[in-house]
């Protein structure tokens, strides 16, 4: 697991209060991890803070799963 993936998963576990084994790349924040629309806004903010990047609203809307977040942030870091 990449460093970015590990950091993303750690944030998701902390913010959504879910078990680590549920935070797989295909997990959808809302459908699988119990987030609501406000939780997803806060998650994106937490990614911005952790990785010192800005995620515009239109990009944030495409981040629906753990894997979406990891690949978005990996591209940003590349």
């Amino acid at each position, binding site marked *: 697991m990449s460093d970015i993936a590990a950091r993303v998963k750690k944030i998701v576990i*902390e*913010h*959504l*209060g879910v078990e680590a084994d549920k935070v797989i790349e295909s997990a959808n924040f809302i459908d699988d991890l119990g987030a609501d629309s*406000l939780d997803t*806004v*806060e998650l994106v*903010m937490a990614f*911005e*803070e952790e990785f010192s990047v*800005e995620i515009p609203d239109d990009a944030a809307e495409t981040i629906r799963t753990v894997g979406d977040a990891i690949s978005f942030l990996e591209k940003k870091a590349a």
Partner: protein
Amino acid sequence: MRRVVVTGMGMVSPLGCGVDVTWRRLLAGESGAGPTINVDVSDLPARISCQIPRGDGTDGTFNADEWMEPKEQRKVDDFILYGIAAATQALADSGWKPESYEDQTSTGVLIGSGIGGIGGIYEASQTLIEKGPRRISPFFIPGRLINLVSGYVSIQHGLKGPNHSVVTACSTGAHALGDAARLIALGDADVMVAGGAESPISRISLAGFVACRALSTSFNDEPTKASRPYDKARDGFVMGEGAGVVVLEELEHAKARGAKIYAEVIGYGLSGDAYHITSPSEDGDGAYRCMSAALKRAGVSPSDLDYINAHGTSTPLGDEIELKAVERLLGNAAGELCMSSTKSSIGHLLGAAGAVEAIFSILAIRDGMVPPTLNLDDPSVETAIDLVPHKAKQREVNIALSNSFGFGGTNASLVFRRYQG
């Protein structure tokens, strides 16, 4: 109008988590005051407060995780957490668990707060200044709004009736109970979960109340001596935190399900001072009129009162003004009355005070025990009224009145009677 009774009670107080532990310690003369912890008070002249004892839930401590998931706690200010805990206790105590659509829509919530999420607003402003608007959490607004206690409680327990809130400074809790009882009396709901919640022990609110010259500053080295209503040495109130919530229920509804009935809400009176934003009117007329209105509504005379739970905050001005208003109300019957200020033990819970003190009034009726006014060593005025100094007193209480007065000149009195069928 329909009759309204109290069928459930819940509380988180500086004396502990729960009605029973708080009441036991209150009657034992214990104080909830201590040095303020977890808040930087080093440069403030008021460095003590009555904070909720946090812990693992044993020995009366408050374990937040028992009442709200940790990930949810992060989103809200503590007044919401305390309100949820007290409401959950009150509903469990009442045995009322509405599951049908009809039962859910006839059960409402009316929980208020005096200053709500002021601590969280302070923290978010710092984030805004230091990091900009994109760092403000989407939970900032819903976690600070005063009516969100009612919102959270309704969501947790499926209560779809009237969803309301009150903000009247230190009268909030009393107004919440009184207004909720009216909603039942008028038929808008059959059951109401009503009360007040407050978490004011933050740097910004302490600084603000200090600036109003409202807080005690002379007893930082002896915290348990600081709240001393009616005593010559009193110099302000001691800030407290917590929540009190009751389940109010239409009498026939309560009887039909065989609920235990603690007391009947027989009177509620309201008045305004129209005098000053923070000082009570010197003639005590606002207090007098609100007590009179509550007794008139109750259909009882002042001499029928056995116990008054006073507003009695331990400020130099307010205590004597209330006392004189009560003397004027009682006349020659003053010698038969017990009146105590439980703020001497738990401090001033602001918007939660009226609800917590209403519960103490109800418990005085239930147990025939009147809680004490601590630290009343040397009364500043002579009175025929028994102010119950130092020690709780055994006495039959059939009718009790609870007073609450707030900044802005807002006054509320509640009258409870032993349920007699």
